[in-house]
Structure formats: C-alpha cells, structure tokens
C-alpha cells in the first residue's frame, strides 16, 4: 500500500486555493473588507476636523496621518486573520494538510493584503487629495503604501498567528506588531513627506521594497511556526 501513496496537489495549487478561498469569503462578507476602509477614511478625516482647515498645515501632516491611519486599519483587520479558521476547525485542517504550512501562511497573508491593503492603496489618492498634497506626492504615497501594506500584512500575520485563540483582542496584537512595524511607518511617512518638498524619494522606496522582500521570504516561516504553537 506504500506504493499507492496519494499524490499531493502542487504547492501552487495550495497557495492559489487558499488565496481564492479567502477572497471568496471576503466577497460573501463585504463588511470585513469595507469596515477597515471606512475606518481608514474616518481616522484621516478626524485630523482636519481636529486641527482646522489650514491647507499648509494639512499638507505637512498629511503623509504622517495617512500612514498612521493605514497602519491602524491594517491592525484592525489583522486581528481576525486566523480567528475564524481557528473557531470552525479549518485551522486544524490546514495544519494537517500535506501542503507545507509555510506556503499556506504566505497564502493567508497575501489573501489578507488583497482584500485589505490593496483597496487601501486604491483609495489613498482620494484622501491625499483632501489633504492638499501635491501630485507627485500622491504617486509616491500609493507606491509606498503598496509595499508598506504588503509588509504589514506579512508582519501582522505573525502576530495574528501568535495571538490566535488568546481572546485578548486587538490590544495585544498591536503591542506585538507596532514596534516591529516602525521601520515601515518611518520610511513610508518620511518618504512621502520628502516628496512634498521635491526631495529625492528613491532611497525610501527602495528600502520599503527591500523590507517587503525580506518579509515575503521570512514572515511565512515565522507565521507557520507560530500557528503550530498556538493551536496546540
């Protein structure tokens, strides 16, 4: 019977399978996607309301505000990344599947990014315009947010995997992830604000891209290890 060992589907089909499933789930429950987006838009709107409509001031705080709002929105949606899988037993099935867990963890993070980070990148120009940011900065903002939200999804998936089943909510996850996410915030926000004064931005963009690559290669391993530990 050893020679009739079942064939395992390819890694790619496992990866695509989980990304497709999570996007389909988001499609069936649009609230999960829309709530962080609204949160992002509202937090960004709070600052002009609190600080007054002076357009110079808005232009100078805009990059920082948008980046902090994006960071918080990502954290908000990350909290539930593995919770429903944990509660309905899907996580056991993932851990017991013959697919390497690292690939599935990568799939979860990418799926999360496609339904939370990518829409945020798409609507960020609207928010940037409302902050009177110059045109070149809006482009830079979208590019930095592209790499930044992807890094946050990957980093955050580690935290979500560590806290799954702990019922301590978003506070613990934020405590774990925010210090780790600092480089992304620093480079993202500073690069955008440099671009408002026509300074060179390539260094920051390269850094974010490099950080994103590092996260793509290392984070899934940490997430997989954390999932096995949390689900014991």
């Amino acid at each position, binding site marked *: 019977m050893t020679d009739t060992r079942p064939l395992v*589907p390819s890694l790619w089909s496992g990866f695509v399978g989980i990304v497709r499933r999570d996007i389909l789930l988001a499609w069936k429950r649009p609230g999960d996607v829309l709530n962080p987006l609204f949160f992002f838009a509202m937090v960004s709107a709070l600052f002009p309301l609190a600080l007054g409509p002076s357009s110079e001031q808005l232009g100078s705080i805009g990059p920082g505000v948008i980046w902090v709002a994006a960071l918080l929105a990502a954290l908000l949606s990350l909290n539930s990344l593995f919770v429903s899988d944990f509660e309905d037993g899907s996580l056991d099935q993932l*851990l017991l599947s013959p697919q390497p867990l690292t690939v599935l963890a990568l799939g979860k993070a990418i799926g999360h990014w496609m339904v939370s980070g990518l829409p945020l990148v798409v609507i960020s120009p609207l928010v940037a315009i409302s902050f009177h940011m110059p045109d070149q900065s809006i482009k830079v903002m979208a590019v930095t947010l592209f790499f930044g939200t992807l890094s946050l999804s990957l980093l955050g998936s580690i935290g979500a995997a560590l806290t799954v089943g702990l019922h301590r909510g978003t506070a613990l996850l934020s405590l774990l992830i925010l210090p780790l996410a600092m480089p992304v915030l620093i480079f993202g926000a500073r690069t955008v604000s440099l671009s408002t004064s026509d300074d060179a931005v390539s260094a920051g963009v390269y850094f974010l891209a490099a950080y994103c690559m590092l996260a793509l290669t290392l984070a899934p391993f940490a997430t997989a290890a954390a999932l096995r530990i949390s689900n014991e």
Partner: protein
Amino acid sequence: MNFLLSGHDLCLFRGDKCLFNSLEFALNPGQLLIVEGSNGSGKTSLLRGIAGLLEFEQGEIHWEGNLLHGHYQAFRADLAWFAHKVGFKDDLNLLENLRFEQSLHSFDEGSVMAVLARLGLDLLTELPLRSLSAGQQRRVALARMLLSKGWVWMMDEPFTNLDGAGRSLVDAVLSEHLANGGSAIVATHQPLEIVGDVKRVSLS
C-alpha cells in the same frame, strides 16, 4: 515486527494532570483502533498528538517502521481528519468548500456527486453551510473522508449530532474503508458496529 502506525511509551500532561502514561498502541492496514474513555480522559489529545498537532511529554510514534517525527509532511498526505469542528467555511457552499479541499489534499474528483448522493447531500450543494443542520454538517465532514485518498482516518466522536441513519452510515463507511485495506483511529464513548479487525485502547 513492523506496524503501519504504532506508539510507544506515550505520556501527556495537561497542567498538573497526567492524562496518560506509558501508553502503547499499534495499528496495521485494515485495522481499526478504538480509543475509549470518559469525557476529559484525553481521547482528543491522544488523537491530536498522533496527528502531530500537539507534542507528547515523552514517547514516540513510528510510521511504517520509521520514527514519525520528521516525516509528518508525508504522513499528512495519508491522513484524513474528522473532528468535533467540521473544518469547513460556513459562508461558502458545499462545492466551494470541496474545491478548496481539493487544492490541499489528494482528492477523488470523479466521485464527488456519487459520494454526495450517498450521504444525502446532493441537493444541498448550492447552500452556504451555515444553513445546513448540525447533522448535515457532520455528513459534509464525512464526505471529506470519503473523497480523501488518505489511508489513515482519524475520527474524534464521529457520532455527535447524528441520527440513527447517520450512525449506521458512519458504521458502514468505516467498515468499507477497513475492508479496502485502510485503517482508522476512532475516539468515542459510544459503541461501534463495525465488521472488521478491531483493537482497543482505554484511557481512564
């Protein structure tokens, strides 16, 4: 003598409490291992330990003559898992769930409709799982076992939420699996009516 799957000197603690100590089991193709014991005696933990979901305090598991540790990836290709929680998505319908299953496990694509018909699920394929009854959801989990090509089935309390017809379905399906040369580990505190080679492990 080489067994398909065997455990030696297994010991597991939960907090201060020792669930079992120096536990032994052995399983061959075509055999069924029934894990008996009252609630909280560690049946589920034993199953999860064998599957590699949690670590035993001490002891080792052998699979086809080798130490299982380090071969989990290959072992999982041979494993089908059935637990309290169904492990499917409530918001997706049956076919969408099975399609995802297909991307993870070895899967018998040709017989999907036949299996669903046998389980009485063939008319429910378009409904999201949350609108199915608890018993129907258990049948959906059973469909996963039947469609999987894994030789080792691990089932935790397979009769929960099932009516009389459902129970005899489980019995029949298990007997068939054993007759085909598969093996199974079932944790339950209810009697099984199985035709085949049955072994038992009792946890107190």
